[in-house]
């Protein structure tokens, strides 16, 4: 883990699609760790076929909430329940959420879901409870292929900083102007 005493961390994911084998262990680990209701997921694997027969390939990209720098979900929340912490985590104050589901409409990544039982919207928190205890998110810890890298972008010595400094990478839907905190390495 990065040294958090120096300055405010900026937590990011760096995903390596070529290492993802679509085993979905991250989805199971997340559901167990966060007690995610059956029928919903806080993280998922996007499948994409590239090209067409005979020159065709399949491609797996792990994804979860992008914890945007400029989160559309926070912008549209009518009660201020969704907020952005100083270290960039976009979190939900469940006592203020009324379950209007406007944020679900506003998220370009479809990262949010409606928890019917509690009547509130929920999503990936980057495992904030583990993070605050100095542990990485459950999905990172369990990933068998090492496709999910997690760390502090404000620390130049962190694994994620080094990966991004040495690899070509992209983010999803840059045209939405969200400033996402998930980076994908180009093979």
């Amino acid at each position, binding site marked *: 883990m990065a040294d958090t005493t120096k300055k405010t961390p900026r937590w990011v994911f760096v995903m390596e699609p070529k290492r993802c084998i679509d085993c979905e262990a991250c989805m199971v680990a997340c559901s167990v760790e966060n007690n995610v209701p059956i029928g919903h997921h806080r993280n998922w694997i996007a499948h994409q076929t590239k090209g067409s027969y005979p020159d065709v390939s399949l491609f797996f990209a792990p994804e979860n909430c992008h914890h945007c720098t400029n989160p559309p979900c926070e912008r549209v929340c*009518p009660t201020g329940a969704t907020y952005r912490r100083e270290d960039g985590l976009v979190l939900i104050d469940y006592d203020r959420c*009324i379950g209007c589901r406007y944020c679900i*409409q506003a998220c370009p990544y479809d990262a949010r879901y409606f928890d019917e039982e509690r009547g509130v919207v929920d999503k990936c928190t980057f495992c904030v409870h583990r993070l605050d205890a100095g542990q990485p998110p459950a999905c990172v810890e369990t990933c068998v292929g090492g496709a999910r890298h997690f760390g502090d972008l404000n620390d130049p010595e962190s694994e994620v900083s080094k990966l991004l400094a040495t690899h070509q990478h992209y983010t999803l839907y840059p045209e939405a102007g969200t400033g996402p905190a998930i980076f994908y390495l180009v093979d």
Partner: protein
Amino acid sequence: MPTTYDPFLQGYSGSPTTIEWGLLVVIYLYTAGISAGIFAMSGLATYLGGGRYRRIARLGALLAPWPLMLGLAMLVFDLGRPLHFWLLFTTIQFTSPMSIGSWLLTLFVIVSLLYLVLWLPRPLRNLIRVPQRVGDLLAPARWQPIPSRTVRIGRGVLAAVGFPISLGVGMYTGVLLGAIPARPFWNTPMVAQLFLFSAMSTGVAFLLLVATLVGDLLDPAALEHERHLLVSVDAVLIVLEIFIIIPFFLHQTLNTWSSAASLKLILGGPFTAPFWIGVIGLGLLLPLAVEGYELFPIILKEGAIKYRRQLSLASSLLVLIGGFLLRYVFVYAGQLSHFLPVFAR
């Protein structure tokens, strides 16, 4: 239950797109629009024609708050935690159309209820007693009916104040959807205009419907020039709607790939029939044709329109059905549209 649908993302599966806002939200946007339209028409009638349209003003004032209040009940019921709806009113979030809209709707309900009281028939109005002087505030025994001077001035003031508020409510129902970049189908300012014009049109149609039914009870000829005004205004509004839908198509087609692809939802996708047959055919072109037929003698300056009960009933009902389908198509189709992934390009 949310359903998933992937109309144009062949070869891609990410997080599923779900329908989160269902019929309750459709009804709420629809009834809010009707209320806004009724109030705007009533406010206009207060000022138009030097008292000639008093009956429309009164009818509108008596009807305006109710559809919206029904819709608000639907909206609260649709929340995940209905009993916590009051949290909306503990803050104003200036970047959230829903937060601004909640306050706007509250303002509208207050203004339209006060306006309703001032337009109550005199015997009913005189049952309501208000303090005449500050000193009487704590002595209800000395309260008197509202003085006629206050009623006269109050109607004018509330009509003037409420008119822009009602336009705001009509527009808000579209801004709520249009202000979301993540849903390309909605993300154009024209949705706000379309919903505003549709709100005005459905409100006027609602008035026309009630005026026609009430006219049956009274002398059928009595409401003739009122109906003439309503039919004329509604015809203009329908034309305005058509001239918003045309640029909507042009802009979406010529916009980003995601926006252009989102049009497939109504061009061959699941909402093609409701949109073209329901919204365009039954909701706009057919009532416009009926209203044009009714107004034709006037346009040609060949005398006044004849009272045709069936035609008024038909055009107003068609506009009301079309307005509902417009909300339905936009609320549902918009939720299924989304940005297309980079790599699929």
